[in-house]
């Protein structure tokens, strides 16, 4: 966190000054480790074993927050009789189909329930397996209102007992064997964590996207969630799981998504062959209980914001004009389709896939088969120049003359050259003002999209083709300034939403399904309350209480801690004076405290919803998890996940050892693999050729550079600080392979070989797993061939293997070889790699 989020890390240091214990778990000893109280080196890709060990410890020693667990989690819920755990099925959960590599998840549900994701299909029509992830929406709660439960937590089929059995073998000794963490160190962590959790204290987990970059990425986060629920660290001040996003406002581009399967505010994208009209779409995606119960108001208000007066009740508010999914259109399948000539055009905005995406060669193969490519960036990045100087041109595998892609490079304005908001990890929107005009032809993304929209609309104005109606009806009328720049402030106002009198509404509870309100993103509603841009607020923290509600604006409803009803006990009293946040004011008959209550404001703790109640009225007064339709946090996920209701340790796609916990199930059985010539996977441990790639590597960032380098490799003051590609190795590995500090060496995988200077450091330490020694190599991924500081790109090394839930690639754990000296160049590289693949048995 100190490395990649130094500004946010100031608050960790602030907490440390006040006495907090800081523990850093990372395969590498980084600048975060340097100032932590304890660094725990872990074998890359084994975090579920480690977290599972902590879950086991908490359950085994009884150090969970029992009152919280019983009242606020689904620990008492009874599971179906036909549910089978990984303990019963050698590492598989019930419902696995080896033919398709997917799960039928129905046996994971509660007993006697039809359970579905909170936002997603509720009907019985069969869904093709490949579509399931795409139509699940934001995931979440089951539709059932009152599942059967055992509040004594004794029933052998209740979630609590199932969880206990599931993690029973995740002992400190197992953690040692899998992760390479000594039992003594494990005990240090477990003691610190349990001592700092409970009524009087809370602990927080911070992770960066490295935690998600695994074939079990979603289950990593689930494991941390289970631990935090057991310890009572959710919905309480100082608790939570804090996702540090990959770069500025990635949270914002999830909320108002650049994701292919979401509409703004985590509303699922309609599917081409499913709900064909608004009514069935809403019916299929509405939760019975909680705030997903008002899906109709959110969707209709969104359609009104987009299509304005053209959207009427008679025409389903133009629901028909929305684009629809036909399957998995996530990044990697799209790029593979490009390589087959199935994708004519591609916009690359603020991203540099030719160096910045796993298996960069595969990305370039896709780019080379496009008809046209638009790259908008601050600098002339590799994605815009791959056709003349990419690695394949050097090796002779591609010829510029053969590449038909027409590349348009459009210079972009930087954040300091335009107005707008950043949404940070706390869901806090903070406005940034334009400091200087962008130079030359550089323009903001807002200007670009507004202009291209205007020009396309003008061109289609006379069209009678029904497919052009979406663009014809689209409202597209933002005020512009002297330079032609549209007003970002006006866009934010549209996102906030307006009422029948065309003034801004105060929040999403004011949204209506009758077409009288407009709102571009329901969760952001309130950011422009009282006709004021609330994200611009800058009242200093010292002039406010700890929550600082007048600094920026946090969605939803300016709440700073989600699910904060859980900071009070079921009766509405704070769990402790020290950790009070929101509580029930009996005299005033409302929730009150130091944060905006994340709960219906006047629903008393003893309120029990009557039969037939729905949406917010169906939330009981003692059910803090208002987005789940059983009102509870999930230790076991009865729906919404594709690869297991509970996390289980699986080895990465490539690892040097077999799975000590489930010997018969090495890696995530539901992971997405792509067996293609440019995407060869290394042999599994024990298979012939596995020893060709004996070492582990993990990719990482340094403070001095930013992502794939598009913003930093052209900046002299950053380049001098970290001038060259380097590879971090331990003195032991250096001795083993003859590497010298400051001298060239190269890393090899079946995909490619890259070179860098060896940085031999005591910070890198081999791990001992029983009798095996594991060497881990650190590979920073900031470099590429363009800019002032150049070097090979780490993403050349990686294969594409994905988490099935969110289609994210595994970049943080894979296997490789390392050798001294520079890598072969030109055509020699091709034969060099072929030889490696041949020795590994991957090529004949």
């Amino acid at each position, binding site marked *: 966190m100190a490395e990649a989020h*130094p500004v946010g890390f100031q608050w960790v240091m602030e907490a440390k000054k006040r006495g907090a214990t800081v523990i850093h778990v990372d395969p590498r000893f980084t600048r975060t480790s340097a100032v932590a109280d*304890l660094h725990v080196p872990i074998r890359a890709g084994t975090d579920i074993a480690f977290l599972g060990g902590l879950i086991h410890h908490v359950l085994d020693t009884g150090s969970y927050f029992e009152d919280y667990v019983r009242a606020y989690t689904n620990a008492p819920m009874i599971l179906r009789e036909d549910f089978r755990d990984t303990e019963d099925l050698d590492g598989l959960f019930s419902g696995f189909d080896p033919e398709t590599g997917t799960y039928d998840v129905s046996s994971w549900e509660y007993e006697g329930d039809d359970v579905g994701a909170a936002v997603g299909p509720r009907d019985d029509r069969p869904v093709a397996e490949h579509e399931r992830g795409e139509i699940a929406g934001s995931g979440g709660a089951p539709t059932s209102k009152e599942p059967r439960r055992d509040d004594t937590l004794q029933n052998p089929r209740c979630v609590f007992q199932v969880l206990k059995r599931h993690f029973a073998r995740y002992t400190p000794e197992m953690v040692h064997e899998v992760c390479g963490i*000594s039992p003594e160190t494990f005990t240090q962590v477990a003691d610190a964590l349990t001592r700092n959790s409970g009524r009087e204290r809370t602990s927080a987990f911070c992770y960066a996207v490295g935690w998600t970059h695994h074939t079990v990425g979603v289950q990593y986060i689930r494991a941390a969630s289970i631990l935090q629920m057991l310890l009572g660290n959710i919905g309480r001040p100082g608790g939570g799981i804090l996702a540090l996003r990959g770069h500025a406002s990635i949270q914002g581009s999830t909320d108002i998504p650049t994701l292919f399967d979401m509409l703004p505010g985590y509303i699922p994208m309609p599917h081409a062959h499913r709900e064909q009209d608004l009514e069935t779409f809403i019916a299929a995606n509405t939760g019975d209980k909680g705030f997903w119960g008002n899906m109709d108001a959110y969707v209709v208000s969104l359609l009104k914001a987009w299509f304005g007066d053209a959207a009427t009740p008679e025409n389903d508010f133009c629901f028909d004009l929305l684009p629809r999914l036909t399957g998995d259109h996530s990044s990697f399948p799209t790029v593979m389709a490009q390589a087959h000539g199935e994708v004519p055009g591609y916009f690359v905005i603020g991203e540099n896939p030719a160096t910045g995406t796993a298996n960069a060669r595969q990305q370039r193969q896709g780019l080379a088969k496009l008809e046209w490519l638009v790259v908008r960036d601050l600098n002339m990045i590799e994605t815009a120049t791959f056709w003349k100087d990419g690695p394949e041109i050097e090796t002779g595998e591609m010829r510029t003359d053969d590449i038909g892609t027409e590349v348009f490079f459009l210079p972009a304005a930087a954040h300091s050259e335009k107005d707008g908001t950043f949404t940070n990890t706390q869901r806090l929107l903070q406005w940034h003002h334009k400091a200087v005009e962008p130079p030359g032809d550089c323009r903001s993304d807002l200007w670009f999209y507004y202009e291209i929209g205007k020009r396309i609309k003008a061109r289609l104005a006379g069209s009678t083709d029904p497919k052009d109606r979406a663009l014809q009806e689209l409202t597209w009328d933002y005020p512009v300034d002297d330079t032609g720049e549209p007003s970002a402030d006006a866009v934010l106002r549209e996102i906030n939403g307006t009422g029948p009198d065309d003034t801004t509404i105060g929040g999403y509870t004011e949204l209506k399904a009758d077409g009288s309100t407009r709102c571009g993103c329901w969760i952001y509603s309130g950011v422009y309350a009282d006709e004021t841009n609330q994200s611009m607020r800058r009242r200093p923290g010292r002039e406010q209480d700890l929550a600082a509600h007048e600094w920026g604006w946090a969605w939803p409803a300016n709440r700073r801690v989600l699910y904060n009803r859980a900071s009070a006990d079921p009766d509405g009293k704070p769990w402790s004076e020290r950790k009070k946040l929101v509580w029930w004011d009996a005299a005033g008959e409302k929730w009150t405290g130091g944060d905006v209550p994340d709960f219906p404001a006047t629903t008393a703790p003893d309120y029990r919803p009557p039969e037939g109640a729905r949406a917010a009225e169906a939330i009981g007064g003692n059910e803090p998890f208002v987005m789940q339709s059983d009102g509870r946090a999930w230790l076991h996920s009865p729906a919404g996940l594709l690869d297991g209701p509970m996390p289980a340790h699986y080895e990465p796609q490539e690892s040097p050892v077999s799975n000590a916990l489930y010997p018969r199930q090495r890696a995530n059985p539901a992971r997405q693999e792509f067996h293609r010539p440019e995407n060869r996977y290394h042999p599994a441990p024990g298979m012939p050729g596995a020893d060709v790639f004996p070492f582990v590597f993990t990719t990482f960032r*340094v403070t001095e550079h930013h992502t794939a380098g598009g913003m930093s490799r052209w900046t002299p003051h950053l380049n001098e600080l970290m001038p060259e590609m380097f590879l971090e190795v331990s003195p032991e590995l250096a001795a083993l392979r003859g590497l010298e500090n400051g001298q060239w060496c190269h890393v090899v995988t079946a995909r490619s070989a890259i070179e860098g200077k060896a940085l031999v450091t005591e910070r890198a330490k081999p791990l001992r797993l029983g009798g095996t020694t594991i060497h881990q190599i650190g590979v920073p991924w900031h470099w590429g061939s363009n800019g002032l500081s150049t070097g090979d790109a780490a993403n050349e090394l990686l294969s594409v293997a994905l988490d099935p839930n969110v289609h994210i690639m595994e970049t943080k754990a894979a296997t490789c070889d390392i050798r001294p000296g520079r890598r072969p160049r030109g055509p020699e590289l091709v034969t060099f790699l072929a030889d490696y693949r041949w020795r590994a048995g991957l090529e004949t």
Partner: protein
Amino acid sequence: MVNSLYGPLDDPSGNAGYPDGHPPRVGFFTDTSVCIGCKACEVACKEWNALPADGAHHDQPDLLDLTGMSYDNTGALGASTYRHVAFIEQTVPARESATVELGMPLASLPGDGGGDATEVRWLMASDVCKHCTHAACLDVCPTGALIRTEHGTVLVQDDICNGCGYCIPACPYGVIDQRKGDGGAFKCTMCQDRLGAGLQPACATACPTESIQFGPLDELRERAAARVETLHERGVPEARLYGHDPDDGVGGDGAFFLLLDEPEVYGLPPDPVVTTRDLPSMWRHAAVAALTVAATVAASFVGGRR
């Protein structure tokens, strides 16, 4: 008024002739125990002062290469590097983390149950001109380019500097340097051009963890003493201050540090002394020598007459 050259001195600006009512003496307290090595200070300094990137080879600014010295790729303070973050990797005996009373010591090799119990320590520290109470660079400057400012800092006026270079060997810390191609001497100005506008220096403004603290020197010294005490209470006995003491060889630094090891480990001299300390006695000795020579010569003439 005669400039004082050695020993405690409460008010260097007053001593330099600024009238009563001049601003208080300001300085930096760099608390290395919270430094995360982000180098924001280096970047902010270069941006504000419009300094070129010159990497680790200050004489070959175009050469961009890795030094191989941990994460330090700018090497040292220089004419274009007024802030420099040192990275020191150490293997030290594992200690019980008394700060948090976590119990067991770390094992030597992660995954091992026991062993020789060593751990890695990675020290980071942002170095800067010390703005000495007694600044030899200023004392030896023949043109008056180096001055004591109203804020008590030491400043090179680059339009007056003639590039003679006398200040370079005079600095007991090796801070000040000549820029190739320009010839002038350059070093940290404590952002004189920001202080006048009521702003903090760029480095202190950019530092995310308050490792670099700026303010009136008296306040900083109090704050630093309290911080050392806190760290000692929390089981960090190695915390110590450097350059805070008005009785030291330079009369105390305007920029002082909290270190976690001996100064030499960070590349700082353990016992710096203002190189002009002995100037009065040197002049006295020179005068005596001159008189002796004169007397001898005179005597020889007198003697010759005999």
